[in-house]
């Protein structure tokens, strides 16, 4: 059997195996063990434990639990509510200010928490009822929050980007900076669409606003500015190369825990234990997938699948944009079914050489990759955000949320198209701050 055919069989077996509902990490590991045993015999098992251990023996990975802890600390507090309230108070005169505030709060909270479902829950719990009360339709209110939540995996610091960095051996600081402008661009696209739809349907955007005094506006700032400075601080430290991502994340996590304790007086033992437990659960889940994916990658490359897929695509001799379109389509479909971390770990090491060979930038590709994963978060069957929104506003049906989220999905597709036409959206800022890429 040729390596390419083996690759096809591996893909089919993996999909079928994961479809049974076996945990993704264990499914990937078992598929890898099965193929190694079949093609290389029982001797291949000796590398199993070392690969599992070795893949996690990397100080960079420490940043993942640290950022998760930082997000869990923020998510356990009413910081999301305050963030949203602060933006609403400052932007209420802007036409459609409320929806802009909601999307803006999603973007900032997403950056802090790095988690899409946490963002949807934190901003949506307050934002969706408020928007509906002021007359926005349910589909727009829920769709906007579902889409806003996805920004968490693109806007830095982003766990998805760290995983991409680890899988492809690219600079995490540079990946973070590359995600910043595209993240803001998507936020702007979401806002533009929301305003357009509200205006077209004849909602009076000014009537939907509330009014606030200057005092209202000022008194909320001390609650939100410290969190914003933590994000700014992390980005500054990382792009300046002052500290490693793990160090920045560790200090960021400690600061967030302290801030939550000081500002919101959340310092009781049960809450602290819950924050630790939730972070541990999420970290264990992600790190197990990382370890299993390392075994999966090892299996693919020792059976020469990785190399032959790359050679096959390079040998197709088609336009590089057709290759990119095919990759996008593939990622989109994979994202419909699998969590972003798993898709990145399984496919990025195979795809990146192909993409770079075709003349695309690794950091630009990370952004395009991530936006594809974002789309998967708001599309069935496993669109996590849709279910979170459904959970916090049970009177809005899933199809209504989906209908509301659909145009935002198209905004993301438009975002990918814009990135293809103007790659500088992703590459300009890192080039400016960190010097041109290699």
């Amino acid at each position, binding site marked *: 059997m040729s390596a390419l055919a083996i690759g096809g069989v591996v893909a089919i077996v993996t999909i079928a195996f994961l*479809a*049974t509902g076996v945990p993704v*990490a264990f499914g990937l590991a*078992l598929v890898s063990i099965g193929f190694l045993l079949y093609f290389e015999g029982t001797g291949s098992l000796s590398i199993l434990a070392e690969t599992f251990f070795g893949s996690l023996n*990397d100080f960079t990975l420490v940043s993942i639990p640290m950022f998760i802890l930082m997000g869990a600390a923020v998510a356990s507090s009413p910081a999301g509510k305050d963030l949203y309230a602060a933006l609403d108070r400052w932007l209420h005169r802007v036409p459609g200010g409320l929806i802009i505030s909601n999307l803006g709060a999603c973007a900032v909270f997403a950056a802090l928490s790095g988690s899409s479902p946490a963002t949807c829950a934190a901003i949506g719990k307050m934002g969706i009822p408020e928007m509906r009360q002021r007359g926005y339709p349910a589909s727009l209110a829920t769709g906007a929050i579902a889409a806003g939540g996805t920004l968490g995996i693109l806007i830095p610091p982003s766990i998805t980007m760290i995983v991409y960095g680890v899988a492809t051996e690219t600079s995490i600081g540079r990946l973070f900076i590359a995600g910043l402008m595209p993240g803001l661009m998507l936020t702007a696209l979401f806002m533009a669409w929301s305003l357009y739809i509200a205006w077209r349907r004849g909602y009076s955007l000014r009537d939907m606003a509330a009014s606030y005094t200057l005092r209202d506006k000022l008194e909320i700032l001390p609650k939100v500015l410290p969190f914003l400075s933590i994000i700014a601080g992390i980005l500054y430290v990382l792009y300046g190369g002052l500290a490693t991502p793990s*160090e920045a994340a560790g*200090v960021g996590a400690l600061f967030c825990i302290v801030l939550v304790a000081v500002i919101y007086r959340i310092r009781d033992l049960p809450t602290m234990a819950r924050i630790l437990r939730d972070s541990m659960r999420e970290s264990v889940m992600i790190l197990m*997938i990382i370890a299993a994916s390392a075994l999966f990658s090892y299996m693919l490359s020792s059976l020469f699948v990785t190399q032959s897929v790359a050679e096959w695509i390079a040998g197709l001799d088609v336009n590089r944009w057709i290759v990119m379109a095919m990759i996008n389509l593939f990622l989109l479909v994979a994202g419909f*079914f699998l969590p972003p971390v*798993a898709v990145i770990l399984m496919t990025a090491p195979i795809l990146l050489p192909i993409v770079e060979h075709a003349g695309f930038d690794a950091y630009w590709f990370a952004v395009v990759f991530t936006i594809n994963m974002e789309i998967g978060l708001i599309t069935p069957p496993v669109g996590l955000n849709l279910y979170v929104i459904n959970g916090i506003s049970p009177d809005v049906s899933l199809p209504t949320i989906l209908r509301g989220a659909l145009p935002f999905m198209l905004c993301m597709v438009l975002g990918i198209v814009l990135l293809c036409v103007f790659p500088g959206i992703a590459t300009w800022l890192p080039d400016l701050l960190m010097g041109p890429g290699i």
Partner: protein
Amino acid sequence: MDTFINGVRRLSQACGIVAALLLAAAVVVVCEMVVIRYFLRASTIWQTEFVTYSLIAATFIGSPYVALIRGHVNVELLPVYLGGGMRLALALFAAISALLLAIVLGWTGYELLVEAWVGRWRTETVWALPLWIPYLPLPVGMALMALQYVADIICLATGRAQPFGLSEEAGR
């Protein structure tokens, strides 16, 4: 039988506590390391390894707890869609697969541990930590996770638990 299931549950919960404490220790040490490196301008000796190994230990020791609370993410599309007997069959298949992996990984982890112990392997750093210490959590965690999946399989087979934790109506 209930004694066994409850005993395993308690063990897995204890694993969760250990893993959470390891995570907390890692945060404290990372911050201590930052203070030493950037404020006191001194070099660090054991911190990088300690933090990395703590989190590896947290991952393997925490795995049984995460298995207990169904925190290892899976694709539930087919189980939700199928329902009934097929759903139970899939749940059993998934749990047996996970058990199999825990056994294989735990066993190879044990072999690695013994090799490191007998060969007196140490890390190639100033700290020169005996390698069996960071290797230990892999076999221990996987053995406990295997127990957790045995308990899960018993619960599924005897109707003590719903397949995939889904209610009977889910997806219909």
